[in-house]
C-alpha cells in the first residue's frame, strides 16, 4: 500500500518548487502557515511571502493588487474563509477583472473533522463555480494536487484550488493532468461514477469490488469542476446510462450539479448524487463524519451496488 499524504502538504511542496523556478510567484496567507502549508515557501523565499494577519479580505484584495504588478499570487487560508468569508472580494476584485490570482484553499469539506461546522466548507465548490472567469480544481490525491498547483501557475487567470486536511491515499499510477480534462480511471459500460477529491479513491474501490461481481463500472476523476470536461462526461453518461456522482461537498451546486447540467437533455439517465444532503457538519473524526454523512467507503460501495 502506498504512503498516505494530504493534498495540502503537496500544495505546500509545489509552492516551494514553483518559487525556485519562477520569481514572480508570491505567497500570502492569513496567519495559518503551518496549516495551509505555506511555511516551506516562507522559509525559502521570505522576501516573497506575506502573512497578512487574520484579515482574509485584505489578503485576497492585496493579491489582486500584486497580480496587477506582474506577480502570480497564491493566497491561502481555510476554504470556509477563502470561498465564503471573502466571496465578494473574490468575485469583484479578482474574477471580474480576470486577475491572475490563485486561491489555494485548504481544509475543505467535512474531513476537517474535530473543528466542527464553523470550519467545514461544504459549499465552496458551488460558490466558486458560479463566478464567471473562475477555474475550479479539486485534486484527488497529493500527486494531482502538486500537478494542479503547477498548472494553475501556468495559466493566466483566477483559479480556485481545493485541498483537504487529512492524509489520504496516493494513487500509484502516474495520471496525466490537464486543466479541464477529466481522467478516466476505470472503463466499463454498466454504469459510471463521477467523483472528485478524496471521493475518487472509494469510487475506484467500489468499481473494483463490483467488477468481481461481473459489473463493469466506469470511474471518472473530474478534478476540474470548471471548466467541466463536458465531452468526457457526456460520453460516459450516454454510454453507461446509470450515473452516480460523489463529492465531499453539499449535493447542491457542486460536482453532481455540474454533471447534471452537462447531461440534461441528452437522454434518459438514472442519476444519483452522493454528498452532504443540505445540512451542516459537526465535530467528530473524519472517518466518523464520512459515515454520518453517508460517504464512508462501505456506504459508497452500497450506493454503487444499489445503483448498478
Amino acid at each position, binding site marked *: 500500500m502506498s504512503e498516505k499524504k494530504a493534498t495540502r502538504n503537496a500544495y505546500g511542496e509545489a509552492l516551494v518548487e514553483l518559487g525556485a523556478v519562477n520569481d514572480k510567484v*508570491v505567497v500570502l496567507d492569513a496567519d495559518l502557515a503551518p496549516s495551509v502549508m505555506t511555511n516551506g515557501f516562507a522559509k525559502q523565499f521570505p*522576501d*516573497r511571502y*506575506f502573512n*497578512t*494577519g487574520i*484579515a482574509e*479580505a*485584505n489578503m485576497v*484584495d*492585496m*493579491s*489582486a*493588487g*500584486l*497580480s*496587477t*504588478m*506582474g*506577480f502570480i*499570487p497564491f493566497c491561502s487560508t481555510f476554504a470556509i474563509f477563502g470561498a465564503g468569508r471573502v466571496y*465578494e*472580494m473574490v468575485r*469583484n*476584485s479578482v474574477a*471580474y*477583472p*480576470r486577475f491572475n490570482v490563485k486561491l489555494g484553499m485548504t481544509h475543505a469539506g467535512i474531513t476537517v473533522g474535530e473543528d466542527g461546522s464553523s470550519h467545514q466548507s461544504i459549499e465552496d465548490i458551488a460558490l466558486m463555480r458560479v463566478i464567471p472567469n473562475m477555474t475550479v480544481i479539486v485534486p484527488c490525491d497529493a500527486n494531482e494536487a502538486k500537478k494542479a498547483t503547477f498548472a494553475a501557475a501556468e495559466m493566466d487567470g483566477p483559479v480556485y484550488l481545493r485541498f483537504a486536511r487529512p492524509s489520504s491515499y496516493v494513487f500509484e499510477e502516474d495520471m496525466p493532468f490537464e486543466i479541464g480534462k477529466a481522467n478516466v480511471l476505470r472503463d466499463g459500460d454498466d454504469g459510471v461514477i463521477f467523483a472528485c477529491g478524496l471521493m475518487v479513491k472509494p469510487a475506484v474501490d467500489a468499481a473494483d469490488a463490483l467488477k468481481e461481481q461481473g459489473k463493469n463500472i466506469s470511474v471518472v476523476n473530474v478534478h476540474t469542476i470548471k471548466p467541466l470536461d463536458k465531452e468526457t462526461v457526456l460520453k460516459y453518461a450516454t454510454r453507461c446510462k446509470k450515473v452516480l456522482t460523489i463529492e465531499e461537498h453539499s449535493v447542491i451546486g457542486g460536482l453532481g450539479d455540474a454533471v447534471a447540467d452537462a447531461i440534461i437533455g441528452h437522454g434518459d439517465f438514472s442519476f444519483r448524487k452522493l454528498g452532504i444532503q443540505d445540512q451542516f457538519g459537526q465535530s467528530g473524526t473524519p472517518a466518523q463524519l464520512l459515515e454520518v454523512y453517508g460517504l464512508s467507503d462501505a456506504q459508497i460501495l452500497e450506493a454503487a451496488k444499489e445503483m448498478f
Partner: protein
Amino acid sequence: MDIKELKEVCRQVRIDIINEVTEAASGHPGGSLSAVEMLVALYFKVMNIDPKDPQKADRDRFVLSKGHAAPGLYAVLAERGYFDKEELHTLRKLGSKLQGHPDPRKLPGIDAATGSLGQGISIAVGMALGAKIAGNGAKVYTMVGDGEMQEGMVWEAAMAAANYKLDNFTVFVDNNGLQISGTNDEVMSLGNIHAKYEAFGFDVIEVEDGNDIEQILAAIAVPHTPGKPKCIIAHTVKGKGVSFMENSVGWHGTAPKEDQRQAALKELEG
C-alpha cells in the same frame, strides 16, 4: 501646467461630470464633484503616467476605491487624453467602456475593478507592496470616501500599509461629510479620522480646503517619512461647484434633469 491652467481643467471636468451623469440619467454627481481637485492634481501634475502607453510598467497607480465617483475619474482620464472625450457620452450605457463603476478590462487607464466599497484601498496596498518588491519605484495612490471607511476592511488595509512600511503609498480621504442616508455622524460616526490613521501608523496631513488644488498639491508634495504610508484628509464639499448640489445628501446618487443640467452648466460656464 500652472495653477490657473489646472483650475481650468477642474472647471472643465466638472462640466463633463454634469453632462455625463445627466445623459446617463443615473450615477453619482455629488462625490464626483468633491473629488475633482485631487484627481486633477494626480493626473495632470503628480503621477508618472503616459496616456498613450497606459500599461507602462513603471507607471504610478491610482485606485479609485470610492468607485462610484467614476464619472469624475472618467472625465479626468478623457481630459488627460486616455480616450476620446466623445466616449463620455456613453457612461452607463449598454456596451460602454464607461461602466457604472470602473472596469480595468474595458477602459484604458483603469488598473482595478472597484465600486464595492472597501476593496480598492486593499488592492492599492497590494500594488504598493508589489512595486516595492519589484523595485520599480512606482508610487501608488488611492482615494476612499469618508462613508466608505465604515467598511472594516479599510482598516485591514491601513494596518497592512503600515506593517509593510509602504512609503510609496498615499490614501486620500474625500472627507465631504455626507453619505447616502445622511451625514457621517448621523449614520455611523467615524470619530477622529486623523487620530485613527495616525494610530494605524500613517503620516496624516489635513487639507483645510480639499477643493483648492494648490492646497492639495502642497499636501502631496510633503515627502513621506521613510517607512511610513501617508494619508491626506481632504475636507471637501460634496457637489462642489454647483450651488444647488453643494452639501446636499440628495445629490449623492441622483442625476440632474435637463433643466437642472442647464442651471448647473450656467454656473460652471459662468
